[in-house]
């Protein structure tokens, strides 16, 4: 009876896992097939090769775009981790004047769609001379109300006893932050870093309007151009480019998963 229940459970899990992964798996498979076979609807063809990847690398600057996206995502994530941690700490542990109002101010920015800011932001970045540069692509994103909210929620879970204890033994703010709050919140920190890196690896509207040369252009923009040019002619190369852009993302996620299991299994804080 329990075995049957287990088998049933696994059946559904595997089915859903297959369905969820299918778009990626089919995409990877198609990227290995000659475009002629795809166009003829022969997805069961076994003429697999890396020819589409070679073509993508040779005919498009996709590697340069990937390097740019990588640099941008790293810079933004690092900047946000520092700024959001500091702000979240203040909201979670400090008492200060206008705390509620300032927190509301942060939350309000979560409600303000980026589309509503893009024209003035473009003008600001142009005035600063940051168009087509890493500064222009990263600095506007260094503050994140979403990140602050996420970290604050995690910091609030730190037990009061730990806070009181750290005050008793005379830890200052930074000591309390680094020795207790961050370790205690590490699964949220990992989620935060992964999410921010991936989000900005995937940025597309802002790079689209603020970059003009291949020196700073990012991956998503390249994919859009390729897709717009070649939709009906070269599925093989399009899929290969899409998978190339996806590959670092999947690697980061798998690394994150390993960390997650370790972190979660270690359990509570050993202070």
């Amino acid at each position, binding site marked *: 009876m329990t075995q049957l229940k287990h088998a049933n*459970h696994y059946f*559904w899990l595997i089915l859903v896992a297959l369905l*969820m*992964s299918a*778009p*990626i798996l*089919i*995409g990877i498979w198609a990227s290995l097939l000659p475009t002629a076979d795809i166009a003829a609807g022969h*997805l069961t063809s076994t003429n697999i090769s890396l020819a589409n990847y070679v073509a993508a690398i040779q005919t498009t600057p996709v590697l340069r775009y990937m390097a740019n996206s990588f640099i941008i995502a790293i810079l933004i994530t690092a900047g946000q981790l520092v700024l959001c941690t*500091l*702000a979240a700490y*203040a909201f979670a*542990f*400090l*008492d*200060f*004047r206008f705390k509620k109002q*300032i927190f509301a101010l942060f*939350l309000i920015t*979560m*409600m*303000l*769609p*980026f*589309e*509503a*800011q893009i*024209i*003035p*932001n473009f003008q*600001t970045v142009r005035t600063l001379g940051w168009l087509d540069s890493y500064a222009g692509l990263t600095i506007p994103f*260094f*503050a994140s109300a979403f990140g602050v909210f*996420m970290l604050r*929620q995690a910091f609030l*879970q730190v037990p009061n006893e730990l806070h009181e204890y*750290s*005050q*008793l033994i*005379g830890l*200052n*703010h930074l000591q309390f932050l680094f020795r207790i709050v961050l370790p205690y919140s590490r699964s949220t920190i990992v989620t935060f870093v*992964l999410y921010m890196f991936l989000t900005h690896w*995937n940025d597309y*509207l802002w790079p689209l309007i603020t970059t003009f040369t291949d020196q700073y252009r990012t991956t*998503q923009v390249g*994919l*859009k151009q390729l897709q717009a040019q070649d*939709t009906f002619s070269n*599925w093989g190369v*399009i899929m290969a480019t*899409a998978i190339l*852009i996806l590959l670092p993302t999947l690697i980061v*996620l*798998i690394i*994150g*998963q390993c960390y*997650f*299991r370790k972190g*979660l299994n270690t359990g509570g804080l050993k202070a």
Partner: protein
Amino acid sequence: MELHNTPVAAPSTTTSGTKGRFLKKTNAALWFLLPSLVILAVFTFYPMIMTAIESLFSTNVRGELAQFVGFSNYAEIFSDPLFLKSLVNTFIFVITAGLGTIALALFLASMVTEKMRGSGFFRTAFASTMGISGAVASVLFLFLFNPSVGVLGILLKDIGVKQNNLVADPTGAMIILVVVSIWMGTGFSFLNLLGALQSVPADYYAVADLAGWSSWQKTWKITIPMVSPTLFFLLVVEIIGKFKTFTEIDLITGGGPDNATNFIAYKVYTDAFGNRNFGIAASEALVLTAIIAFATWFQFRFTERKVYYK
């Protein structure tokens, strides 16, 4: 309370501190908040104010303010059937995709947390959609739903549901966008809920088992109340995120067919950069902003009191 000389805030003391201590605390907080506040001021609040000003002006093709027109831009968009249609369709999309994402994520997370073999594999599989960009997801699903080369497109044709491209049909285009949105959003919600479920004490379930509760009862009486802070957080984030959906519309449907998927965020973009009508686009952007602000306020007002905090 003042055993040490660092200005760590004492938890929940009343406002009885002296003025000196008060300033000390405020100063510390200022340094923690200042970097974020500066960036937000320059790249969020200033542009919002500029957009608000622009919405009260007519503009030339280069986006420069031409003439003050008061609220006539707003009057214009609210008498425009296209904009009203865009509003309705945006709501349909946000509600369907938002609730779908969280429901699927909770279902998956509750299936994986149980002590079981291969949970790592399933975690990776379900979280794998988290990092996928709108552009990549769009290309993958355009391929899947393509009626002549895609698996789903061919399937739909074979079982006689749809002969043409699903994207060419107003309902079909909406369905594809909802599917892509749920598929993309599930990973993040799943990971968060998984983390939250880990922190639910196993004893609670053990006691429930002794009391002979069904798994349905356990879900509603233990799991959901215990993960409610995370659910609340995800609800806010998902709804706001869906309202801002842009990339997939741009790549999959282009707002069509017949404006069925011309959601507000996309309409703002096309009115600004396509039609070069910045004043109209700015007022539409502020309507979008107002809707998102209201949704968020509504959620805070009516959800937070039911949320369980430690």
